[in-house]
């Protein structure tokens, strides 16, 4: 099992969700994040002071999947999130040692979906 963590542009979330549903990945957890990367920030000007803000709003998606779903899920995220511009984001894949469904106590592969 793998845990996929993707950092994307916030406004791409609807597209990504759609792409995932089409790839029938229906479960995910989304968090709000600030990202710093190649993408350059914006100039903030407030009361006569100007500074560059380089922590930009990003959306972070976590999806736990079984191996067979790994590729399709990554494809789907790319499909939904890619604009070709700097700042599109990253996808990180981690090995998932175990997974438990709280409601039923099921473990491992069945618990994922």
């Amino acid at each position, binding site marked *: 099992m793998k845990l996929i963590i993707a950092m994307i542009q*916030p*406004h791409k*979330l*609807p597209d990504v969700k759609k792409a995932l549903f089409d790839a029938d990945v229906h479960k995910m957890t989304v968090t*709000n994040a600030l990202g710093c990367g190649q993408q350059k920030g*914006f*100039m*903030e*000007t*407030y009361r006569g002071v*100007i500074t560059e803000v380089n922590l930009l*709003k990003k*959306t972070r998606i976590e999806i736990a999947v079984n191996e067979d779903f790994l590729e399709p899920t990554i494809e789907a995220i790319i499909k939904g999130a890619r604009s070709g511009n700097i700042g599109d984001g990253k996808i990180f894949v981690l090995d998932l040692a175990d997974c438990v469904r709280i409601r039923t106590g099921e473990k491992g592969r069945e618990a994922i979906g």
Partner: protein
Amino acid sequence: MFRRIRNILGGGVLVLLGLAGTAACEPQAGAASQTGVDTLWVLMTAFLVFFMQAGFGMVEAGFIRAKNVCNILTKNFLDFCMASLGFFIFGYALMFGDGNGFMGFTGWFLSGAKSGSGVPLYAFWLFQAAFCGAAATIVAGGMAERMKFPAYLIYSFLISAFIYPIVGHWIWGGGWLSKMGFADFAGSTVVHALGGVAALVGTMMLKPRTGKYNADGSANVIAGHSIPLASLGVFILWFGWFGFNPGSTLSVGNGELIARVAINTNLSAAMGGIVAMATVWKMFGKPDLSMAMNGALAGLVAITAPCAFVDPWASIVIGAIAGGLVVMGVVVLDKLKIDDPVGAVPVHCLNGIWGTLSVGIFGKAALGLAHDGLLYGGGFKQLAIQALGVGSVLLFIVFSMGIVFKLIDIFLGLRVSREEELKGLDIGEHGMESYAGFQIFTTQ
């Protein structure tokens, strides 16, 4: 301070009297001057109308997304400043100066200008300027979340310096409509239908916000970011309306008239809120506060024209219809894919029209109207005049504002870039956030 006053009331005021030369014959010692009291009334109500600016700001801000709040507030703030200036330099002269039936020509910069009522010119001007500001700011809401800031500045100067005053002249400045006996007591047409239809023209030119409508034509919810802000705004507007309508008497008289106007204003607003709430509850299964609040505003807009000419029961009916209209309006606009984020068109345009017409239905000659309304056996006379009046104003605005927006679009562009819209106009146009430090999802 008071010692200053002493010698002002000694020397100063007498001089003032001399200078200003008001007709007010001095009342006997101990008794208050009628002109003084009327001025007090007009100023107090003018202050309330000014405060509506805050109400508009909060409502508009509350109903849009957090990422565009600073932008709309800047527009709302600046347009009042612009209106004050524009109405001082040009507006007043065009509206209340001597001229022909179409516009006035005298009193630029108020120099040599005459007051339009018994109160001193400066008080009368302030009251009128606050109205002008209200008309200008209505548009901000309808065009919210995508209109360029510089474009808005120019627009707001033009409407308050030229377009609003001209229409005002027709109806309140002794122009052709007022001569015909067209009755718009406090501005359902002059302020609201005018502002509302300008918003309609503008929002149609701008096109909907990205993501508002789907390919299949269905609409998406783009939820307002702060219901408390919007609710506060509505209360402030309602509060301010007690200046807007009763103040339009421009005189306290024996109290009868201002009392009537005040009660009608309140009843219509309350009924508008109730009916709108009931309608939306019935139609969509939930009591939606945003609609109930729009309903109250609709009731206020509708009663603005007839408030002095009708009885309380009539104002309840007028408000009830307004409350229903506003809900229908919102639904229909979405069907037509006209994206009006805060409901400026249903509230101000639709109910501005309804209110103006209602004068011809529920109005009473006994209360100072040219002809009795439909229900009082006056037939269609007054109603026809009302229809003609509001109709011609709509035409004029569609035409003039159409040109204004088109020109701005050509020379500056009306709409921000897609990137900026996604990031939010606060960062794009103003380089700042409205809620620094807060974690806010900008996924929409």
